[in-house]
């Protein structure tokens, strides 16, 4: 049973958490011709944008309502109107996703109300969908911000009653923020392989996959087609990946079609469960031949890798859904999560397979690693400093990963991705070889008299 505790201290050292508005921005970037807009001071946006740029190595069209001293006191409604007007002029987006920040939430603005009134007044904004999510920095992290944005999109754009007949083969797919564009693509492809037609919300697979576009866009480079979002009301089923997506899935379930909140398919057992759910939704016992081969290959990879994962002591720092997924995949291979730090307490936090989960920061992990004798650190790139100091292997997972290329391309899900993940873990263990020495065993060194003193090498 996982015990979830808050450390008793005031100081946070090297935060693990990434802010909620950033999560909302990432979700908005998975919508067709979108621009995320932070309602806050411009610094809120600047820091988030730098984070996103360093991770994805892409131009990120993140904008700000640029709250100033006056608007911070008198209210920012006009700032939003002005921002939308300017964005429409400069980049012609079809979708603007607004995320509030700590500043505007602390002020207590009724953004939703003001927005309604403003949009009713400004008929010229009609061809741009504007969606607003409340994502104060002081509540939750990237996972929550992402989820709030998806919920806001559903509330605003998916009708309560479907406009057409139910489409049994159409499936809503709600990936959590912990999945990379490559992972979402692999999962969507598998859904299609079962003869189903997924509407992925949000869909980063063609917007942040890292591709060279023919023209400068100024908006997201891809994403869920806006026209398809209202159709989600007609889908036969909804698949949500990760506990954070449960509220969004329930919203869609109220519009018809059963909702399945599934574990992230990393590892044999979780992928089996995922495939079984797809078989049920598709009503088939027939699976693609490729899938059978991939499963057998994962089994073999597990056998080869388990020598290096068995008994491996791991320190894990990630937001709840990612921590639960990676933690369970590691424990399934005989590893132990000896130190776990996460950001918020959700249903997923309780699924992290550790005795205790600290809702803390990387500083807590740095203290716990020597205490627990952990040999591998799994966390985002900010863990690199402690990994160097403590000489532990560092497996980069989560957001941000700014010191490695291809973060968007990492695929650790399903049978094939799990295979790659286990190889990655085992290879990391192998790249930190333990060289035994006499003192490890309490043995005295070999007598000096036996040591050959090499002559200085000859010169030519």
């Amino acid at each position: 049973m996982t015990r979830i505790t808050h450390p008793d201290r005031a100081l946070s050292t090297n935060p693990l958490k990434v802010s909620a508005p950033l999560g909302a921005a990432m979700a908005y970037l998975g919508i067709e011709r979108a621009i995320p807009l932070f309602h806050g001071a411009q610094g809120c946006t600047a820091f988030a944008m730098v984070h996103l740029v360093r991770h994805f190595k892409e131009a990120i069209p993140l904008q700000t309502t640029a709250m100033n001293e006056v608007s911070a006191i008198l209210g920012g409604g006009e700032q939003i109107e002005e921002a939308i007007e300017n964005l429409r002029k400069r980049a012609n987006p079809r979708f603007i996703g607004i995320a509030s920040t700590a500043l505007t939430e602390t002020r207590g603005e009724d953004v939703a109300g003001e927005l309604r009134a403003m949009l009713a007044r400004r008929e010229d904004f009609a061809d741009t969908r504007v969606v607003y999510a409340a994502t104060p920095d002081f509540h939750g992290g990237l996972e929550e911000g992402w989820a709030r944005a998806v919920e806001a999109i559903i509330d605003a754009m998916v009708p309560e009653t479907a406009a057409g007949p139910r489409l049994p083969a159409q499936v809503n797919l709600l990936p959590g923020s912990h999945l990379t564009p490559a992972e979402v693509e692999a999962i969507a492809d598998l859904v299609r392989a079962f003869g189903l037609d997924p509407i992925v919300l949000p869909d980063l697979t063609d917007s942040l996959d890292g591709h060279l576009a023919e023209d400068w866009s100024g908006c997201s480079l891809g994403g869920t087609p806006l026209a398809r979002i209202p159709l989600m009301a007609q889908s036969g089923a909804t698949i949500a990946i990760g506990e954070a997506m449960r509220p969004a899935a329930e919203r869609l379930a109220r519009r018809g079609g059963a909702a399945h909140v599934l574990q992230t398919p990393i590892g044999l057992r979780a992928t089996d469960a995922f495939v079984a759910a797809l078989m049920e939704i598709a009503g088939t016992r027939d699976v693609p031949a490729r899938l059978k081969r991939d499963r057998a290959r994962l089994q073999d990879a597990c056998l080869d890798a388990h020598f290096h994962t068995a008994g491996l002591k791991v320190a894990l720092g990630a937001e709840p859904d990612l921590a639960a997924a990676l933690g369970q995949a590691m424990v399934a291979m005989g590893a132990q999560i000896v130190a776990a730090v996460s950001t918020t307490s959700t249903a997923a936090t309780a699924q992290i397979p550790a005795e205790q989960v600290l809702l803390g920061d990387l500083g807590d992990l740095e203290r716990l690693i020597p205490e627990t004798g952990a040999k591998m650190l799994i966390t985002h790139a900010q863990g690199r400093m402690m990994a160097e100091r403590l000489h532990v292997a560092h497996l980069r997972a989560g957001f941000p990963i700014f010191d490695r290329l291809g973060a968007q391309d990492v695929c650790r899900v399903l049978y094939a991705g799990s295979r790659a993940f286990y190889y990655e873990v085992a290879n990391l263990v192998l790249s930190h070889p333990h060289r035994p020495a006499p003192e490890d065993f309490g043995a005295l060194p070999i007598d000096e008299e036996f040591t050959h003193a090499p002559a200085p090498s000859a010169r030519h």
Partner: protein
Amino acid sequence: MSEALKNQVAAVLNEPACATNRSKDDAARKKGCTKQLTPGAAAGGCAFDGAMIALQPVTDVAHLVHAPLACWGNGYDNRGSASSGSDLYRTGFTTDLSELEIVMGQGEKKLFRAIREVIEQQSPAAVFVYSTCTTALVGDDIVPVCKAAAERFGTPVIPIDVPGYVGSKNLGNKLAGEALFKYVVGTMEPEVSTPYDINIIGDFNLSGELWQVKPLLDKLGIRILGSVAGDARYAQIAKMHRARVTMLVCSKALINMARRLEETYGIPFFEGSFYGISDTSAAIRTLCAMLVERGAPADLIDRAEALIAEEEACARAALEPFRPRVAGKRVLLYTGGHKSWSVVSALQELGMEVVGTSVRKATEEDKTRIAEIMGTEAHMFENMAPRDMYAALRAARADVLMSGGRSQFVALKARVPWVDVNQEKHEPYAGYMGMVNLLDAIDRAINNPLWADLRTPAPWDAPPAPAAPVTPLDLSAMAGTRADFEDC
């Protein structure tokens, strides 16, 4: 094969100290101990491989292989012998002969140049030069080349004449021992000599196993003077003629060397093992008794007994937590055999059931011992064909296979845990604490949740039929095989 090499092979095969050899009649002894290999059904190293196994752990030596690429290009840095000093032994040096050089007979010249280059670049304590099939076949004579090079460059250059075709790995071990004895032993004198100086022959310090035992010797004041070849320096071999006692570890392969040390320098030897608690204690007892016989103070024996009592109690206490995790589990042991009985008894003490153990290399004495411990001979077998082993494991007639690397995949593909107990293993299992490491490895292997997941049917497969009762392992029903696929 040259006349000299032929004579040496014949001499080595007629090892007087070998109990197996002694029990043979004259005709059988003349045939030697090498079994004729079966083409198409052989798997094991050659004589060159055997020599390398014995000598490569000498750490400060440049091991130079006179051969086309395959002999060493395919083989270097492949072992887990640990060094507390030089890393030179892990570097692969070879003459990498080309077609033209072989045809034109330029091998010896190239070898001489290679020796010069390796001495200039690496300043090794010595160069060990290994001949191989091709270079021996075309008539390259490494002995005079080594002699000339040693004189010219002032560094010992030792010829190890072991072309692979002369025989098995075991023979290669012996030929390596002969070479050491002929060219190295006795060429240096120790700075100090103590009544506690010993030689250890046949331990290769895999993953640091020698260091697992060394603290025991340190505590008793016993010094490892000579070592072949765990964490060994060249000087330790050159000075080993001054030791008081030789311990021959787990290996008949280098018995010729131990016997020659006894005959030439009067150093008595005994065979012992550091695998298992009772074997470790027995080895320490014998070692100390023999040292006292050779002049060490008599209190060594009392100190040894006190140390044994303390270490045994400590090890048993450390093993106890594993009992609930391993008790009742069925083990299939596939090792050389003669070193297994001590491990068998330790596993049984913890409630594990040994359902079978191979006795491929065991002597009659060992077999009697194993039968005693296991209560019956029914669980002993010689070789087991991979297919039979797979079928037995797949039918879940054992919970874990303990063996060497070559049968690893038989177990894994049968979805059965496997623990490496052979020379490629990555963990040290020697001495008292080694047993604790071994139990930890067994625990990690059999209690890994992976196995349950692996045996779960795929989502698209129908749920499995209720499990049939498991039939016990019946070794007599297996045809067996002549091929020793786990030639360790």
